[in-house]
């Protein structure tokens, strides 16, 4: 996994460097607009400008932002399935493989119609070469022993490299202005004519509807491919349909987001939505909304600050939502997890304390032949019973008093409360039942038993305890197996 990511990262850095060179070359041809640092700096838009963009008052912004919003909805939905099918890298290969198609479509457009920048033609070219790229991945995988990830890495970089080369050649074509093609790499909220708007939004809406219609089929494909096949679902057809949906979203997003970053726009909303829910329907809805919102915000900000490439801003918006979700997500966010971890730790601490007190009391009864009563014990004894620091003991005892399990009689001694005694009895018993079970039924070395028992006993359910009781045939409090072993040794 690490290796693969490393490989991808390196690869991408090289490619981006390459593209940077290409763009510099192109910039030489284009008139230089900026001369000083000041004019290059980002100018903050006025409040009116912000309001105009957000409320979509300008005709052009309205088209661009609306189409990006629809794209976001579609990519959020399709991305969910891509993520759940664990094919994220495939989507990346597909988008990178689009680049040569754009160049070739431009060349064909210029030679056939004299004009290469028809969006429809460029996007058809992108779709075809993207799908050819995916086809090559499958071909490499099926005809050789090369694994999926390597095949995708090869296709991704070779196709992208070919695309960069073709775009470079296109610059020198006579009578054709290829300026603007490079925006397909990083994305730009360019001005948009109404026809292009209809095309992009139309494709996105169709992808949206198709993924809703295919929800059941794609769900079973992602969850249990083998079962789907046994039921007679054409798994490869479904896989291809899913990739066509991915291709549709990718191609629509080429202009606004760019082919390098589109994969983030597909995966990030889905991954963010997963933190909030365990229900696929909610996840799909949420992911679509997150995609739509980041598309809307990203395109809006980019319209305000034209020097910021739209793709980058959109992806950063999605990433922002992702990080917020990762931390605060109500189903599996970091905060929630660490809270429940803390609760478990507190529970384990309490159980250790109660068992320690009980065991010390038990020793007193045995040594002084008393009947089991709740005798006071000293802090010193407690401190020596486990590897606790004085501070830990103090904290545990304070919490025990607070929970009404421990009664601190004076500064030196403490004993269990009435409810604490019952709890301590139960906890100690569970611990021993589990230990004895590990000894007698699970063939675990005696020196390992205590540690393993410690980790499981705290989560024993009532049902499991009953099972243990019947298996070990024990109803009352058993002796500690360690104690038994020690006594045996002493007898010998």
């Amino acid at each position: 996994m690490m290796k693969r990511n490393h490989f991808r990262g390196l690869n991408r850095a090289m490619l981006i460097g390459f593209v940077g060179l290409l763009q510099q070359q192109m910039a030489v041809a284009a008139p230089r607009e900026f001369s000083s640092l000041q004019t290059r700096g980002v100018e903050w838009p006025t409040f009116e400008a912000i309001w105009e963009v957000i409320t979509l008052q300008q005709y052009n912004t309205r088209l661009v932002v609306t189409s990006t919003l629809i794209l976001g909805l579609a990519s959020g939905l399709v991305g969910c399935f891509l993520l759940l099918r664990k094919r994220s890298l495939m989507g990346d290969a597909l988008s990178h493989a689009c680049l040569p198609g754009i160049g070739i479509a431009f060349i064909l457009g210029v030679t056939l119609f004299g004009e290469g920048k028809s969006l429809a033609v460029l996007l058809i070219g992108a779709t075809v070469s993207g799908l050819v790229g995916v086809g090559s991945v499958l071909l490499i995988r099926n005809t050789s022993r090369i694994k999926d990830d390597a095949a995708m890495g090869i296709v991704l970089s070779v196709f992208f490299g070919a695309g960069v080369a073709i775009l470079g050649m296109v610059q020198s074509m006579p009578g054709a202005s290829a300026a603007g093609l490079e925006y397909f790499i990083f994305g730009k909220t360019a001005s948009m004519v109404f026809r292009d708007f209809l095309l992009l939004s139309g494709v996105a809406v169709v992808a949206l509807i198709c993924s809703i219609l295919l929800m059941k089929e794609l769900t079973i494909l992602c969850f249990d491919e083998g079962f789907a096949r046994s039921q007679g679902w054409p798994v490869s057809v479904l896989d291809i349909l899913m990739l066509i949906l991915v291709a549709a979203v990718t191609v629509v997003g080429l202009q606004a987001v760019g082919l390098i970053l589109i994969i983030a726009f597909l995966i990030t909303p889905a991954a963010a939505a997963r933190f909030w829910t365990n229900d696929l329907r909610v996840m799909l809805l949420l992911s679509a909304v997150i995609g739509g919102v980041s598309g809307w915000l990203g395109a809006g900000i980019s319209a305000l600050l034209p020097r910021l490439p739209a793709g980058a801003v959109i992806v950063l918006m999605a990433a922002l939502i992702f990080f917020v979700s990762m931390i605060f997500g109500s189903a599996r966010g970091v905060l929630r997890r660490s809270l429940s971890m803390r609760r478990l730790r507190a529970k384990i601490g309490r159980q250790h304390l109660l068992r320690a007190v009980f065991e010390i009391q038990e020793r007193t009864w045995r040594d002084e032949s008393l009947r089991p009563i709740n005798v006071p014990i000293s802090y010193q004894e407690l401190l020596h019973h486990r590897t606790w620091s004085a501070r830990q003991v103090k904290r545990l005892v304070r919490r025990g008093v607070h929970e009404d399990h421990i009664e601190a009689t004076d500064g030196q001694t403490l004993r269990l409360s009435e409810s604490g005694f019952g709890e301590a009895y139960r906890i100690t018993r569970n611990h021993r039942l589990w230990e004895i079970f590990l000894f007698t039924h699970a063939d675990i070395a005696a020196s390992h038993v205590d540690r393993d028992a410690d980790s499981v006993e705290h989560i024993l359910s009532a049902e499991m305890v009953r099972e243990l009781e019947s298996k070990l045939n024990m109803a009352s409090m058993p002796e500690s197996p360690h104690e038994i072993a020690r006594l045996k040794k002493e007898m010998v």
Partner: protein
Amino acid sequence: MSDFHNKMAPASDRPAVEEDHSPDAPLSIHDLTVAYHRKPVLWDIDLDIPEGKLVGIVGPNGAGKSTLIKACLNLIPTASGKVQVYGKPYGKQRSLVGYVPQRESVDWDFPVSAVDVVAMGLYRKLGWFRPVRKKHKEVAREALERVGIGHLADRQISQLSGGQQQRVFLARALAQDATLYFMDEPFAAVDAATERAIVTLLQDLKGKGKTTLVVHHDLATVAQYFDWVILLNMRVVAAGPTEEVFTQENLRKAYGGKLSLLAEAGHALTQADRG
């Protein structure tokens, strides 16, 4: 043709054929060979499973038990041979067949609830594009009741114990309402309660005249659970009623020797292929 013979001629008068493949058997496997990367894992399997039996498929690790099931279900390509379900190819009889895959074959972190998974057993009946409706969920809930975890229907599947997850898979197969069931290691790593629930369910299916094939790894319980046994080790060592087939001698044949001659031959083939 043979169907005609079956109906018209008394059994004793039937012309003697080389293999007695009765066309109405729930499952009849003829000369099945399966290979992974040209390395054969199942050789010349010939089997006829009689109706209404509870069949255990038993054999050592790597014997091809799961592979046999998967080959029957067209999940993996076969090198040769054919599999028939009630006299027709599997592809035409899917609605009669239910399948319980191995529990580890899916990602239990998937964002669906138990009842959603069970409802997948109805997807084929629903057909393309039709969504799952309330009445389908009711059927799914009933299936969950039958395996004793109806109260967990709305729980996300990662929050279920291993045994409960196994029961979800069984409920999904029940929702398929099949007459022939394939189960891949349903008893693997389950708790005692689940084991009992599965045994009850298998008996229940048998009582309803259904045929069930179960890949099983615990030799101690074979005689107790199954009334028919297939002893497998890359080929069929023995197959038939448990009391006849499940003998010391047959077990030694199936389990004896770490690397059987067949496995060695398969290995040699792969090496030759590479070189």
